[in-house]
């Protein structure tokens, strides 16, 4: 705390204000700046330094291991490539439009063809594909896991029936599921005009199969540990099963359901990369795989960009879930991390 003299000189309002601002407020701001910016910043700097140091000493068959500098260069070039691809696309459509307009001007009865652009997916497109895939898989998992968890939490017998199955499938790696999912999707999803790509569905369902379990388990625990008194209140009021679930069970279990959902989303995002590599879904997993196969001197740097992007997106997804959890949870005092 700032030391204030016991006998203060008489100050004008303005001067008083200035003094207050100078000493106390400034110190508070400083404290906060140190906590929120300086310390994390320091950590990052130390990490970058150590990374560079290590990278200098690792020589691979594809050249030196990329340090922060090369990675930064590669990330810029990935963005440039994206821009170039986009302007090529715009140019393509413009050319097509002009051509078609000319054709129609020459002969009003002519049939014009509109072709869509078939350039290669850029890094940013691939990020978007990955996000879409994980969102789809996570949604499917949630739609199955939450109701299943609620039912198992409510009925001890059902829980005893299903628990061995849950415990058996919980530790299975996505790489084990993938061949099966691929074959099942190929067999069942037969359509002349498919809405989804098969690789997309395979990746999404593999994600769903792997990220189901944390939500199921946490929902069961949340529902099974509802305060006995609250259940008795519900019984005294003779709430019907559905009202009981809606008014008592779900609100009680919401904090643990969300803990499960956060774990599920993190698992799903992790699983997705592996699934995309093997299923060749044009997302970040495929990007890494293609770069690895490509094996140019830039490949390792570009893979490292993908690694960082995967990490940062995972971090952002978790923060979003945390914000949602804080918004929906009734226990505002609870510290959520």
């Amino acid at each position, binding site marked *: 705390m700032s030391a204030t003299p016991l006998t203060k000189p008489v100050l004008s309002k303005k001067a008083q204000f200035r003094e207050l601002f100078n000493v106390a407020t400034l110190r508070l701001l400083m404290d906060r700046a140190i906590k929120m910016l300086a310390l994390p910043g320091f950590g990052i700097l130390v990490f970058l330094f150590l990374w560079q140091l290590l990278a200098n000493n690792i020589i691979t068959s594809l050249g030196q291991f990329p340090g922060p500098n090369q990675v930064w260069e590669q990330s810029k070039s990935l963005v440039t490539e994206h821009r170039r691809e986009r302007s090529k696309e715009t140019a393509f459509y413009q050319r097509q439009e002009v051509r078609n307009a000319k054709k129609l001007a020459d002969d009003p009865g002519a049939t014009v063809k509109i072709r869509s652009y078939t350039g290669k997916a850029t890094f940013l497109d691939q990020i978007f594909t990955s996000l879409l895939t994980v969102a789809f898989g996570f949604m499917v998992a949630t739609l199955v896991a939450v109701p299943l968890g609620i039912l198992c939490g409510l009925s001890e017998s059902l829980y005893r029936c299903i628990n061995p199955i849950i415990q058996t499938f919980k530790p299975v790696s996505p790489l084990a599921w993938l061949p099966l999912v691929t074959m099942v999707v190929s067999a069942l999803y037969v359509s002349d005009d498919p809405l989804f790509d098969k690789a997309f569905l395979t990746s999404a369902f593999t994600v769903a199969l792997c990220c189901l379990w944390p939500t199921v388990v946490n929902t069961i625990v949340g529902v099974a540990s509802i*305060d006995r*008194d*609250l259940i*008795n*209140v519900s*019984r*005294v*009021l*003779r*709430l019907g099963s559905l009202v009981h679930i809606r*008014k*008592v069970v779900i*609100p*009680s279990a*919401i904090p643990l359901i969300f803990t499960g959902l956060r774990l599920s989303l993190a698992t799903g995002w992790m699983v997705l990369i592996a699934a995309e590599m093997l299923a060749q879904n044009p997302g970040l997993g495929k990007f890494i795989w293609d770069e690895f196969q490509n094996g140019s001197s830039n490949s390792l740097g570009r893979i490292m960009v993908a690694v960082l992007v995967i990490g940062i997106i995972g971090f952002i997804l978790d923060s979003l879930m945390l914000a949602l959890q804080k918004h929906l949870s*009734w*226990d*505002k*005092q609870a510290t959520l991390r």
Partner: protein
Amino acid sequence: MLNKNYLEISQVGIEFATSGEPFRALQNVNLAIAKGEFISLIGHSGCGKSTVLNIVAGLYNATEGGIILEGREVDEPGPDRAVVFQNHALMPWLTVYQNVELAVKCVFKKTKTKAEIRDWIEHNLSLVHMEHAVHKLPSELSGGMKQRVGIARCLAMQPKVLLMDEPFGALDALTRAHLQDSLMDIQQRLDNTVIMITHDVDEAVLLSDRIVMMTNGPAASIGEVLSIDLPRPRNRVVLADDPAFNHYRQQVLRFLYEKQKNPADKNAVAG
């Protein structure tokens, strides 16, 4: 017109399954309660007071005997037998108003209009002097205030019998006295039939028309029933110096500490 058999606990006994022999908690519990009567159940810990209350509430099913309310047997929980729980049992995610609303909507959804429901909720919250905090969450209230809301929720259901499981046990002495006065005042006005479990001899004598004293378990039963013929309204300060009041207190104390020694003490001597 006093119907002595408004609520009848008839030949009630209960056994709980354990890993070994079944545990017999209650045996031959018989009690007839009149409409508007205030009954206290008192006894040492573990004597089955709560079990009796839970059987009346329908939360437990008696192994033998049963509960007859207004000439009909009741064997499942229902809003006609509202329960005030020891730890308020308010839904922590609902505000004070919403907590009472949940109960009111269950009972009066078909018979009251929206405006009537709102008025009724507010009326009951004002009965327990909680009208100032209707939109607060339970976590923002003190223990005494939460218990008031719990009581308001039960009163709002207009139950035939109000069952209270040590409603003031978790509160400090001053808050408890305050709530006891509120409860006496409300009971005087609404003429509720009440069964209350308590550990507190003063509380039992002050509030009750009859005190039901239970013997120690296992196979606990009703030991004695003491009628408290003190005029109402009762004032705790005046009664503190009243010979009749003190005589009643002594009778309860004698039952608890001479006739039915605390099982924990007995173990201490034996062990």
